[in-house]
């Protein structure tokens, strides 16, 4: 069994909308009003064109498995072996996550497999965005 607790994020003014989103069951990205670039992680300006006119947009939550490792050593809050994954969202940005509802093995974790977001409450303040196989409902 997992010992200890996993590290949790401490939101900043620039990331608050993201963590309020996960708490409300929404994966929130940002999109530039000027050049339409959709980006992550959060910041109040466009990393592509530097415009400060940006909007928070709700992601479809659909993604594909882009890359991962399966960690075999102990980590606080985790039961090894567990996968540390990077997914590519349908909207373009990539993010780190864990894959849930799926064996943590190379045979089960296939690159490019379709995934969808699954939120898990950690505390009253923080819910984390995980991903599960899209056809594994």
């Amino acid at each position: 069994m997992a010992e200890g607790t996993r590290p949790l994020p401490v939101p900043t003014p620039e990331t608050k909308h993201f963590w309020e989103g996960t708490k409300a069951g929404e994966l929130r990205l940002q999109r530039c009003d000027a050049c339409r670039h959709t980006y992550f992680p959060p910041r109040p300006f466009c990393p592509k064109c530097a415009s400060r006119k940006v909007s928070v947009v709700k992601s479809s939550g659909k993604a594909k498995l882009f890359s991962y490792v399966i960690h075999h050593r102990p980590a606080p809050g985790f039961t090894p072996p567990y996968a540390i994954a990077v997914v590519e969202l349908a909207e373009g940005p990539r993010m780190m996550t864990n894959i849930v509802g799926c064996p943590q093995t190379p045979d089960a974790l296939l690159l490019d497999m379709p995934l969808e977001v699954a939120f898990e409450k950690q505390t009253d303040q923080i819910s984390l965005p995980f991903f599960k196989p899209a056809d594994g409902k």
Partner: protein
Amino acid sequence: MKPKSVAVVGAAETTDLGVIPGMSQIQLHADAALNALGDAGLKPTDIDGLATAGETPTTVAHYLGITPTWVDGTAVGGCSFMIHVRHAAAAINEGLCKTVLITHGESGKSRVGASPRPPFPASLAGQFEAPFGVMGPPTMFTVPVLRYMRTFGITEEQIAMVAVVQREWAAKNPRATFKEPITVADVLKSRMIAYPFRILMCCLVTDGGGALILTSAERAKDFPQKPVYILGTGESVESPMISQMEDFTSSRAFRVSGKKAFAEAGIEHGDVDHLMIYDAFAHLPLYGLEDLGFCKPGESAAFIGARNTAPGGKLPLNTNGGGLSYMHSGMYGMYALQESVRQLRGTAAAQVPGAKISIAHGVGGMFAASGTIVFSNERG
């Protein structure tokens, strides 16, 4: 920078490498610095420029009794020392200082007087990577590799071969931590750390340090050691988060830094006699060979498999045994620079006969930063 305007006139590692529980981090800096000063025939009071990472320049200057007119505390991980060399060359040329000391010391294994390790929970990495169970470099540096393997059809056996070949170099080096020969089968049955990485594909964790002394090429001829000239330099940074690396099959920081260094040096790949690519993990030489332009994308594993980088090959690579077999304190870049200097002085344990041009290419963080130095031992 102007090629060959600045030279390395002092270079040394700590007296011991490996497990050094009797020395704190700052003393490892000092032990290496005193050895490098001895190598150059200098005293701390002769130094007027200081660059370091891991400790602040203030701490190292005060500890050693140096009164600098120029300092550089660039700390972007293991390639900081390559970047220090680049900045020092510019500073010497600009007349900001005459004689620069660059120090590294790290109690990576024993953790005596060591600095705390980030990330902090409000940083971007703390918010968007730490919650998903990353536990240091073995779980971050390795994340892009399955995508690299898928893109180019690279196998675990081919990645294991990187470690096997480097162990051949380490066997020739009395100071290497691991010298026993290994096979691909040994690597692939060694303990799993973070699939697809097994322990023999991961660097050592040791204690140690190193230091360099640089001055103008004009003054270099008056020093006791054969000068090793700075021919070209490069640096860049990309992202503090591995998940945000632009291209999982190629490092932008490597490409930018390497291209700059080659252009400054005015050399072609065929001119390079000896190469060091920072190998915290077995995939780094693969990315490095491709991003520096020695191999086309996806072809470096076959290049290593064909023994081009092995003893007797046309491009000797990581001839000290590398971070995989020689030593790795945490910020290994200093040891890559030391081996390049030894090769061009003609004093390396596994000496490449007649080596004239050597490149030391470093990484910082998890593909987060890069620094590249091209050295030459010919002034003309």
